């Protein structure tokens, strides 16, 4: 018999049963919920007259709608407030633990789960949010679901899913000094395109991945969904165990020993096969920036926007439409383009290491006049740490301000909207039309590239600051 991949091992151990000619019934270890994609699911349970299968496996935190200033005050925007209140009420009625707005463990759901030790290797994890793929960095099967599936998971702790195909993406080699995990994943998506991973679960491997911290790995897995993949994952290793150990909900004592023994078995066997394999060389990767309206439209910051001839004929209309929206021309040089806003935050790059690297990069410089910058921690714990480490002071000395945690301008459901026509360098994960506010023009980049842009007011290679 052939060996198994990491994905197979976890998947197979969670299949309650397989429906012939249909999907598998997959048991869910952890179910994270937030205010936007859950109210209709709870309503569905009420209509069916059933209760939550096991409230102990569900955790809630409001993040998408919340303001990033004055969180101690009631939310001004009425619909947002109602959604957040509804989440509180649904959790209270169903005995679900919630990290409420402005409480010490609250924040973006994909930042909170890992930092509290709730996300662990070998688990199946779902959330009504596509960036659930973030948790795959711990060697778990984690993926986003729709609201019908949220209802399904609440009602039965299972979801019906066809098993995805397996893809291996191996990145070997050494990364340059200013090249971050964000650049790696933007580079990979630019090569794979936004549909290149559809139908697959990706395992990321190789020496470049192994040398990454957990936070950097989370950035990679977070954006695996941007190439259409069901999710991404990385086999757990000592880096993973060290990160989890001692966190609030991590196993302790004898359970810790048992857990680590089990986690060590979670790797792809040498003779296992993938349906597709790709190899990338880390030495080829430079700081990246996106110039279009999907995350696959990325380029080296030192390069130029592709010319029309280099684009597939079938895709040329979409390409032109996209550049038109961005106010760019084919062939434009990227470096030197003026920018208006900088957003540092989100479940992609809103963790402490991201704030740290941004703060180190701006130290001794000043924010460019005319640039508006929003620095938004991913969680309350990140905010606290940023204050304790002096990151907040560094930011303020350079003319920046640390806001309160939440999704913020990543999807602009709260007040943090980039005005129409303005250019934003953003450390988030999506540059879709209107994502950061109607008419907003988003360019995705790493915190280091965002720092360089914030200091100079234009796209600047971080090596030159």
């Amino acid at each position, binding site marked *: 018999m052939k060996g198994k991949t990491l994905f197979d091992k976890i998947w197979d151990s969670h299949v309650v049963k397989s429906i012939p000619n249909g999907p598998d019934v997959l048991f869910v270890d952890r179910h994270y919920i937030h205010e936007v994609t859950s109210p209709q699911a709870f309503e569905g349970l009420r209509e069916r007259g059933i209760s939550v299968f096991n409230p102990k496996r569900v955790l809630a935190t409001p993040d998408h709608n919340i303001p990033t200033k004055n969180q101690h005050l009631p939310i001004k925007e009425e619909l947002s407030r109602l959604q957040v209140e509804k989440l509180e009420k649904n959790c209270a009625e169903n005995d679900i633990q919630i990290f409420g707005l402005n409480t010490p463990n609250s924040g973006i759901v994909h930042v909170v789960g890992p930092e509290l030790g709730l996300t*662990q290797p070998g688990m199946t994890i779902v959330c009504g949010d596509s960036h*659930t793929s973030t948790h795959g960095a711990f060697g778990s099967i984690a993926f986003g679901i*729709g609201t019908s599936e949220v209802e399904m998971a609440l009602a039965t702790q299972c979801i019906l899913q*066809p098993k995805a195909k397996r893809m291996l993406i191996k990145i070997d080699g050494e990364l340059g000094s200013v090249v971050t995990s964000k650049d790696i994943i933007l580079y990979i998506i630019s090569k794979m395109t936004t549909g290149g991973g559809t139908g697959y679960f990706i395992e990321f491997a190789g020496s470049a991945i192994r040398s990454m911290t957990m936070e950097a790995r989370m950035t990679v897995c977070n954006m695996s969904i941007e190439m*259409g993949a069901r999710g991404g994952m990385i086999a757990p290793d000592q880096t993973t165990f060290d990160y989890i150990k001692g966190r609030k909900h991590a196993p302790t004592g004898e359970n810790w020993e048992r857990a680590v023994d089990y986690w060590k078995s979670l790797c792809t066997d040498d003779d296992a096969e993938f349906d597709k394999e790709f190899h990338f060389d880390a030495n080829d990767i430079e700081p990246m920036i996106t110039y279009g309206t*999907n995350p696959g439209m990325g380029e080296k910051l030192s390069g130029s926007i592709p010319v029309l001839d280099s684009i597939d004929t079938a895709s040329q209309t979409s390409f032109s439409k996209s550049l038109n929206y961005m106010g760019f021309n084919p062939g434009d040089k990227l470096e030197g383009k003026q920018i208006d806003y900088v957003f540092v935050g989100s479940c992609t790059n809103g963790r402490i290491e991201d704030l740290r690297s941004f703060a180190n990069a701006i130290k001794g410089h000043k924010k460019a006049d005319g640039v508006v910058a929003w620095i938004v921690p991913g969680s309350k714990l990140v905010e606290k740490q940023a204050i304790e480490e002096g990151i907040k002071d560094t930011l303020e000395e350079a003319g920046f301000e640390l806001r309160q945690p939440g999704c913020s301008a990543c999807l602009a*459901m709260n007040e943090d909207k980039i005005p129409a026509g303005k250019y934003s360098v953003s450390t988030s994960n999506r540059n879709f*039309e*209107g994502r950061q506010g109607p008419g907003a023009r988003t360019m995705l980049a790493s915190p280091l590239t965002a720092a360089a842009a914030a200091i100079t007011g234009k796209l600047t290679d971080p090596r030159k600051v």
Partner: protein
Amino acid sequence: MSIDKFTTLTTTMIPLPIENVDTDQIIPARFLKATTKEGFGDNLFADWRYDKAGNPKKDFVLNNPNYSGDVLVAGKNFGSGSSREHAAWAVAGYGLKAVVSSYFADIFKNNSLNNGVLPVQVSDEFLKKIFSAIEKDAKTQIEINLENQTVTLLSTGEKESFEINGYKKNCMLNGFDDIDYLLNIKEEITEFEKKVPTFSAL
């Protein structure tokens, strides 16, 4: 709860020959503040469909009286991006019964099936043929037969088959719902839960 049954559909089509239409375009985030599933159809493709003042933009296909029908035909990779089921509610709420494209994002595919909207994946060539048939005649019709898993351009008789897994097909044909299925095996799930490795309790 149940979804509408889907058997055979014969209809004119609404063409949207744009690739990588993401769920942020299908339903922009600012419309996600509702706590019910109602009313999303009015905001389907809101930013392409209405100008800033909320007036219909003449050049967008949904505002073009020449095109109508129960099926949206869209460019490759439809529904990428966010997992928001609101996108499927918007498509269903607008009255669409199926979306035809040469590629669908996974989560959107599941979400639309869960709301009685059939994602029909055809080849790039067949998609091209459909678009040019509509270009020639806005009233040209398509037939989608779920039982036989075929899609036919009625003007030329050209036909292609499409994939759907047997379980989902059965659900769509009969209007069944996944949750009913899972509730029926609740005891099996309870037994299964006792066996899954757990190292820290909440």
